[in-house]
């Protein structure tokens, strides 16, 4: 079928940051996102219960320009302080119009 190549940006971060991250995603032009509750461990130690805090995994399918801008933003405003990781995966989507803002796409 007729698929388009886009980028799936995945952010794992503390759940308290959810509303802030979602606002940032929207501001940068993401038109949707999916959130999942996860636990994890990394440089900041274990995060696996309500006591220590838990993580969320936030996924959004965006085009390359938005992905780039988000990487920039997250690494400046979140990495220095918060337990956060971010990675990009190439994906193919159907109905690309759903994910790409007509103004932004190029």
């Amino acid at each position, binding site marked *: 079928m007729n698929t388009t190549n886009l980028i799936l940006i995945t952010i794992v971060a*503390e759940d*308290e*940051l959810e509303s802030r991250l979602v606002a940032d995603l929207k501001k940068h032009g993401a038109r949707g996102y999916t959130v999942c509750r996860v636990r994890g461990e990394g440089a900041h*130690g274990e995060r696996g*219960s*309500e*006591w220590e*805090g838990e993580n969320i995994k936030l996924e959004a399918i965006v085009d390359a320009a938005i992905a780039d801008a988000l990487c920039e933003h997250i690494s400046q405003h979140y990495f220095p*302080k918060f337990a956060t990781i971010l990675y990009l995966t190439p994906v193919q989507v159907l109905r690309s119009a759903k994910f790409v803002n007509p103004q932004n796409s190029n």
Partner: protein
Amino acid sequence: MEILQSLSSSLLSPMVLAFALGVIATLLKSDLKFPDELYTALTIYLLFAIGLKGGMKLDGMSLQTVGLPLAAAILLSIVIPIWCFFILRGPVGLDDINAAAVSAHYGSVSAVTFSAVLAFLETSKVAVEGFAPALLAVMEAPAIIVAVFLAMRRSGGANGDFKKLLHDLLTGKGIILLLGGLAIGFLSGHKGYDQVAPFFDTPFKGVLALFLLEVGLVTGRRLRDLKSAGWRLVAFAIIMPIAHGFLGAFLGKLSGLGVGGSTVLATLAASASYIAAPAAVRIALPQASPALYLTSSLAITFPFNVTVGIPLYHFFAKFLIHA
């Protein structure tokens, strides 16, 4: 004599024993684990139930009786984090961020310790002023604000958004449920309370025992971090509550509280938050280490308070008021 007796009755209450069981289960590496949703549900229940009961008792109380104790409570939660901060930076040897984080916990209060002192007083047949939950509610936020402010002033290391922090604290679920419960209990009165008491009152202590089992499970996990906390923080986590307890009992007397109310205020001053403060600190002081603030408040101060502390603060209150 008397204090020993009340100590043993405190140690052998199902609540304290359930806490011990939780600690033991974790030390044995048992797979016993509470789902997070159960923990959240129990928290909502306990806070709302505390509020409702206090509100129902507020009926017919004058603003004057309530005003001074409330002022004393707020004062305590403003000044406690200040000296804690300097003690933690000085003798204890923490950096600014971690000193602020730990101060926030010791200035703020623990709803579970509050429930434990109420249960203790009820068993000992000591009357408590109905507005006690209001003391709990007003002591949650100020310390956290003061501590974050101290961290910001000294090293700029705190997370800038002060207004958002203030909003989050004042509308946090603890304050909403406590004050909301108080208002509902007050407005619906005895007749209303009787309708919900079989759910919010009668089984309260049993639910508290179940919750303390969960607190024990988490405390057990935290004990592993004791070593990295260092003996100076351990000493801090035992000595400061005693000092704050004495101060609380004293201010309780000054503000006109009876033995029950003074014991409660003493316990609140001595208690360290481990629900509201950690959540706030994670956002406002994200570089602070949970191995320090959670371990000291949860693994040392909390068990100290529910076992030895509460009978001791009760003794302080009796001593000061009857003296």
